[in-house]
């Protein structure tokens, strides 16, 4: 039994047990109420729910990005075999970008407008790897080329406002996967993009997950996207996980009325 558990843990890149989040805004309601979920290595796990149900809050809690005024509690939070409990900013610094990375909803807002794309990628590399600026530059160019940027050297010199939303999101993906983290959290990465660019970004996230054996927590409210790329699905409603299972089970044999209603909305 212990051995089985250990083998299973090796495959898990994220394990959350009983996550509670209460915003320090005076509201009595829990934003996240006892969420438990796991993400496995090389698999894409979708977290679905309507806007405001607490999906992004789960992601921010996992990344340690919620405000100091917010109350965050959990029974267990494990990221790539790192137990997270009362850890310092320095330890977070090691985990973020290295063990877990995140892609945000609005790519244009996620890149600092005052620095070039190259500067921001190199900064990410040098935060986790002891390499010279030149080596970091070469790594960044290589990564951008992997993400189908043919003129990577030019892109490195561009400021975020000189790129399109899709290009910025690909830059964000490049930053997120540079250190080959075990877990990638993608928070509605295609919502702010054109339909034509959405498919390309999804394809790249899927390929990254398979190529680098990376677990992906894919947050979305788009069930069409989930059907396309996800392996496992968690349905969230009012801060709680109400149903979970593999994608076939959820799409073909939903149990909860809310899940059925969600599915009906796209049929």
């Amino acid at each position, binding site marked *: 039994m212990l051995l089985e558990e250990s083998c299973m843990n090796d495959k898990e890149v994220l394990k959350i047990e009983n996550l509670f989040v209460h915003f320090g805004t005076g509201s009595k309601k829990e934003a996240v109420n006892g969420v438990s979920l796991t993400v496995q290595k090389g698999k894409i796990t979708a977290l679905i729910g309507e806007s405001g149900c607490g999906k992004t809050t789960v992601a921010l809690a996992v990344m340690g990005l919620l405000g100091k005024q917010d109350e965050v509690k959990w029974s267990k939070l494990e990221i790539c075999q790192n137990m997270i409990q009362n850890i310092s900013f320095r330890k977070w610094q090691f985990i*973020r970008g290295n063990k877990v*990375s*995140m892609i945000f909803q609005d790519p244009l*807002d996620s890149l*600092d407008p*005052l620095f070039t794309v190259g500067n921001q990628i190199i*900064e990410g590399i040098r*935060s*986790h790897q002891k390499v010279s600026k030149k080596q970091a530059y070469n790594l960044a160019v290589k990564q951008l080329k992997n993400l189908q940027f043919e003129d990577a050297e030019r892109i490195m010199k561009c400021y975020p*406002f000189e790129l399109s939303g899709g290009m910025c999101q690909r830059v964000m993906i490049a930053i997120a996967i540079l250190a080959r983290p075990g877990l990638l959290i993608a928070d509605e990465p295609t919502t702010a993009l054109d339909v034509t660019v959405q498919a390309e970004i999804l394809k790249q996230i899927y390929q990254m997950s398979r190529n680098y054996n990376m677990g992906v927590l894919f947050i979305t409210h788009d069930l069409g996207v989930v059907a396309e790329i996800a392996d496992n699905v968690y349905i969230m409603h009012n801060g709680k996980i109400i149903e979970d299972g593999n994608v076939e089970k959820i799409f073909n044999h939903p149990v909860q009325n809310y899940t059925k209603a969600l599915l009906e909305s796209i049929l």
Partner: protein
Amino acid sequence: MFQFIFKRIVQLIPILFIVSIITFSLSSFSAGDAARVLAEREYIRPNTKEIELVRVKYGLDKPLPVQYCNWLKKVFKGDFGNSYKNNKPVLGEMIYYFPNTVKLSLGAIIIVICISIPVGIISALKPNSIFDYVGRFFSFFSASVPSFWVGLILLYVLGAKLKFISVLGGRNQGILIPAFTMAFGMCGANIRLMKASITEVLNKGYMQAAKAKGISCIRLYCKHGLKNAILPILTKTGIMFSGFLCGASIIESIFSISGIGKYALDAVITKDVPVIQGYVMLMAVIVVVINLAVDILYSLIDPRIKVQ
């Protein structure tokens, strides 16, 4: 970059031209009869004939546009005319008085920056802490207390009671206390602005994304936070510096500093038209140059400005 600077300089020419027209017209209309003032300098109790003689002598009988053109021609050559009060060239007098005002204003701006930036940053990073409350109280206090009152209190306490500074002014007085008086009122507004700016930047998506990359605390706050938050402060500091240079007259009068503000104030009282015109033109040029410098600095920090 050079194209950007050239464009901005070209834009300044019509502004200065309009300012020169307004300056000349307003001072000509509002300062009373300049011929009478000049005649009083040359004759004891001048009669109408003598005033008319002076009017012709100085070209004051000509139409106002002709007078303006003659004045502008001289201004281009650096000649603002002679003071009615002591017959000395206005430009020479302004060059003599101006460095004192620059010293005072620079001192004040350094004090504002040294107080408001750290206090604003800490208040934003530690909201509702004791530091934030003290900062908030200080900002309200400094914004609501007039600077001349602060000056008089400091002069009374540090000058009359403790004898740290000279009440009569002069070289022994130093620049610190007058500069602090000048800076005091502006500190509060700047602390609030810095706090608001940092708070806004901290909530931006790129700050969250930078944190998610796992960069160090110093890099996060100093590189991304401060650089983005400093932009509105830069504009405000430019405006404030112009304000200090142009509005130094009260502080200079309280602390008996021979600055250009006091010089101009005396000129207004004695209806010394060439001095008033010279002063206003000099201040207009200074405001315009400082704004240009701020624009250039802004464009160096924010690449989006160059594109616009």
